[in-house]
């Protein structure tokens, strides 16, 4: 039980850390085409809701595409080495009305010099110079075997209107981890580069990344929870679990839907801006998945919720099954918001006690963390 408290408060801490820097979405893992597509549509639907101008949306989108392609093309991995720190990472952050996109992937150390040269060259150019440099490369037809020739990087610099901030972190004898952080300027083309801020945000991200590696967290969504984002998150996880057996996949799917729809339906907005903030993350160790949700609930509701979970936890699996059937036919609880089955289902599916933690946030709201494990 001590472990439960640690894990759960860790979830709240992670939520607070992510809120502080407004990291909206992190994906860490293998980037396949399907996963990339799902990430794009998830972010796209969140952008749609953000009320950004179409110009900004388009910029963010273009830079995301380039960044994600960089990862898929260049994730250079040594099969022999433990892959936990060698997976790609994608982060989108919206802070003080500015978007930051960070990508990370392992690269061969022998490529660092070339890459640094390209980045420094790009950073030394003005907007006009970048434009002609881009054309030059196209005309010269110098395309690398990976198809890039740095065009992606130039495009990112052009579309962002800012310098590219980067860093390399030592991984092993042959590998380093390459971080690339792009700030997307909001306003006019002449927005002054704020390299310092991007550099700061990159150093925070490196800290968060360490925690993600430690806990092997593969996906964090910290944003607006609605049916649309739920479907996108589901499709990312479905793609990531493609190789797993059907029953495990369905179990994870099942549990995710119930947990995420809990937030969609019961999450309370403490920010009074119409959003439904919360956090979802999933960690994976071998064939074991831990799923966490965190969301705000009204202080009074938290007591009722606690009673419900404690009751569900107190039942044997046989009693639980009876309770499920009784609830299935209890049409006094039957609305678009509540069927009264979610928690029972979660405990039946995981065959374990539901772990939870309720922290006081202020006098009106509590933060509710629910954790389930699937094997």
């Amino acid at each position, binding site marked *: 039980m001590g472990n439960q408290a640690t894990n759960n408060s860790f979830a709240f801490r992670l939520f607070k850390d992510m809120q502080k820097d407004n990291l909206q979405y992190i994906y860490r893992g293998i980037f396949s085409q399907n996963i990339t597509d799902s990430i794009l549509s998830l972010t796209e639907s969140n952008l749609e809701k953000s009320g950004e101008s179409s110009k900004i949306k388009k910029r963010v989108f273009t830079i995301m595409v380039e960044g994600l392609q960089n990862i898929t093309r260049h994730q250079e991995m040594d099969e022999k080495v433990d892959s936990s720190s060698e997976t790609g990472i994608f982060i989108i952050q919206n802070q003080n009305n500015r978007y930051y996109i960070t990508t990370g992937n392992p690269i061969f150390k022998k490529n660092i010099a070339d890459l640094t040269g390209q980045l420094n060259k790009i950073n030394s150019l003005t907007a006009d110079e970048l434009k002609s440099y881009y054309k030059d490369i196209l005309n010269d037809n110098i395309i690398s075997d990976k198809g890039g020739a740095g065009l992606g990087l130039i495009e990112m610099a052009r579309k962002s209107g800012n310098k590219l901030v980067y860093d390399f972190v030592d991984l092993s004898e042959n590998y380093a981890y390459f971080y690339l952080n792009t700030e997307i300027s909001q306003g006019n083309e002449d927005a002054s580069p704020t390299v310092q801020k991007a550099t700061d945000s990159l150093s925070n991200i490196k800290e968060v990344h360490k925690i993600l590696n430690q806990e092997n967290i593969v996906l964090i969504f910290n944003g607006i929870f*609605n*049916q649309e984002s739920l*479907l996108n998150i589901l499709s990312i996880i479905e793609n990531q679990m493609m190789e797993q057996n059907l*029953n495990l996949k369905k179990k994870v799917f099942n549990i995710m839907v119930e947990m995420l729809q809990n937030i969609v339906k019961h999450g309370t907005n403490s920010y009074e801006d119409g959003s439904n903030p919360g956090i979802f993350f999933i960690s994976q160790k071998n064939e074991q998945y831990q799923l966490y949700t965190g969301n705000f609930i009204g202080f009074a509701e938290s007591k009722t919720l606690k009673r419900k979970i404690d009751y569900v936890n107190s039942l044997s699996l046989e009693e639980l099954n009876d309770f499920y059937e009784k609830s*299935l036919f209890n049409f006094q609880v039957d609305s*678009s918001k509540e*069927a009264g089955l979610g928690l029972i289902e979660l405990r039946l599916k995981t065959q374990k006690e539901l772990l939870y933690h309720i922290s006081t946030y202020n006098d009106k709201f509590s933060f509710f963390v629910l954790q389930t494990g699937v094997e």
Partner: protein
Amino acid sequence: MENLNLQHTEDTPEVILNSFDGSCFIEGRSLPENAVAFYLPIIEWLNTYNNEISAAINFEFKLDYFNTASAKQITKVMLTLQKIAQSNAVKIRWHYLTEDADIKSSGMRFAKLIKADIELVAYDDN
């Protein structure tokens, strides 16, 4: 009386309710945001069919996933079929993928709890 045809979406199943011969079919996955609203027309259609046409019904369920909110509404569909079975022939076939333990046990649960002819039918993927 009209048929009820709904195309499947990312979070709702395909529905075909045929008033000509009472053949009904629901296939896919079901996790809509508002399950009550999605299943209400199906229940209403069944009630209307029973009142206006009052003939046999063959209902095929071929779901590969449904959330708890849908489970409750599917229970209501089952109860409606149970009611119709008192006056007309009702045959329910619950299809499940052979290795899908979840859907199979849901079918067994309904077969146990609903007083109607429910047959479990296994199928293989391909």
